């Protein structure tokens, strides 16, 4: 299937989802749905680097928070519509992704993972000490009560995140089926052999960190408008880094479907747990599921399904 066809189909599904949510007309659906979709984008973004090329990024929250804080900055500096803020966040997080890649991609395996973790801490320290965007106190973002055509502002945010999800999935899928996808997979399987086959590994890895970082920033850009009050500890929350790793791992890292399934499953489960038990259970839930999947289905739900279909032991 061509990417354009896929995009149209995904867009159609998104329209149906939005119409159904409007029909149910319960604000909680939009509120919870936004969070789940945000994790779909985040998980898909992580997977472009972590799943396709095999480089584990522990600092997803840094890119996510960067997107959120670029929105906070512009909210104070010169308010812009959310789609433009998302584009700005993509550029900023993408550039930081490129820079991080340039500095760290000569490191392999565990060292790269540690470097990404360090980046998150460095960025958080910078934000904490930057008064203009609220520093450690945090920043209030007063969102407009309503928006044209749609009315409720949360409905608008939900729609924006829904479209972003469609774009992220289309890009991830397009990469998978392109020359870039073959190059990424070759790097994941064997970097030395990839070089010998003519794959410019450093350049491709930089492309992966840039695209991955850009989408993480895009996922974070509308966040201040969604929660209304942003502080460093929530934007750089551990849950973003952990979830963006756990969701693709549970769904399956080798295709675009995996992060989608993993994020919907885990994200919904977390929303249910938050309402019925407590929000503190979230990470415990993720931890338990991750352990279970590593043991039972190391290739995630997609891997499990493929195994069942092919009938291999």
């Amino acid at each position, binding site marked *: 299937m061509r990417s354009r066809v896929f995009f149209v189909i995904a867009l159609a599904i998104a329209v149906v989802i939005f119409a159904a949510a409007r029909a149910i007309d319960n604000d909680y659906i939009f509120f919870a749905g936004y969070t789940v979709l945000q994790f779909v984008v985040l998980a898909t973004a992580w997977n472009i680097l972590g799943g396709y090329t095999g480089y584990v990024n522990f600092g997803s929250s840094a890119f996510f928070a960067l997107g959120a804080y670029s929105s906070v900055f512009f909210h104070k500096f010169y308010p812009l519509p959310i789609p433009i803020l998302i584009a700005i966040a993509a550029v900023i997080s993408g550039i930081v992704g490129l820079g991080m890649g340039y500095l760290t991609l000569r490191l392999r395996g565990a060292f790269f993972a540690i470097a990404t973790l360090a980046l998150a801490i460095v960025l958080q320290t910078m934000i904490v000490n930057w008064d203009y965007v609220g520093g450690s106190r945090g920043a209030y973002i007063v969102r407009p009560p309503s928006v044209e055509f749609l009315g409720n502002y949360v409905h608008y945010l939900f729609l924006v995140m829904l479209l972003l999800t469609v774009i992220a999935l289309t890009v991830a899928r397009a990469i998978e089926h392109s020359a870039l996808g073959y190059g990424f997979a070759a790097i994941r399987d064997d970097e030395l*052999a990839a070089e010998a086959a003519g794959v410019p590994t450093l350049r491709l890895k930089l492309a992966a960190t840039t695209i991955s970082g850009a989408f993480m920033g895009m996922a974070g850009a509308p966040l201040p408008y969604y929660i209304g009050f942003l502080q460093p500890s929530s934007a750089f929350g551990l849950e973003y880094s952990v979830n963006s790793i756990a969701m693709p791992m549970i769904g399956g890292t080798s295709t675009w479907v995996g992060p989608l399934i993993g994020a919907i499953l885990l994200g919904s489960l977390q929303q249910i747990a938050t309402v019925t038990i407590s929000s503190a259970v979230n990470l415990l839930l993720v931890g338990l599921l991750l352990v279970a999947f590593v043991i039972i289905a190391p290739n995630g739900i997609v891997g499990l399904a493929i195994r069942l279909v092919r009938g291999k032991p």
Partner: protein
Amino acid sequence: MSARLLEVENLGKRFDGFIALEGIDLEVAPGERVGLIGPNGSGKSTLVNCLCGTLVNDTGRVRFEGRVLNGLPAHERTRLGIARSFQLPRPFGSMSVAENLRVPLIYTVNARRGAKLSAGEIGVRCNQLLDLVGLAEMAQRYPRDLTQVEMRKLELARAMATEPKLLIADEAMAGLSQSEVEDIVKLLIRLNERGITVILIEHIMRAVMSFSQRLVVLVSGRKIADGQPEEVMRDPEVERAYLGQ
């Protein structure tokens, strides 16, 4: 333009205090079949890695078709026409056998031509390459399903997919049975007949002697002999060093 395809001048490489290669001079003419032998740890693989850009040589120069390669990363040397197979096969495990060949076709042949092969052309090339090495039936299988000798053939097919001028086969036959070794030697000679220069690094003397037109011997990081295979093997220094007498 030089008449030599590959020229190595005073090449040296050390790992901390250990001198892996020192003062290596080597010339390879287009179309030649060169055997490179030496005891374990004599620097054969280090030399291959320095030629292919996997390691950076400390001293000396490598020239390919008159062009100095120093500083070029491995993938650019592949694009210039130097292909290698690895001592231990390193297939792309998540891809089918056919897909393993797509990677060099996309990243070397396409990049070199500037014009892209169509999906159909890539499919045809994959099949031709698999036919060449006798893996046509395994096209849709995965590397984990292959036997050792099939894995070596895949390794050679993937190197061949880059349309090389020079193929460096690093112990392509280690651990194979005698008939399998003959199989690979025949394959390499077939490739050579297509105009590809081949450097064969090997321990199995029968294979080296039946393949090589010229023999180069490395011992402790130095070249101690270079010439006609029979003459080289009669050289007392080679006999002493290589056969441990």
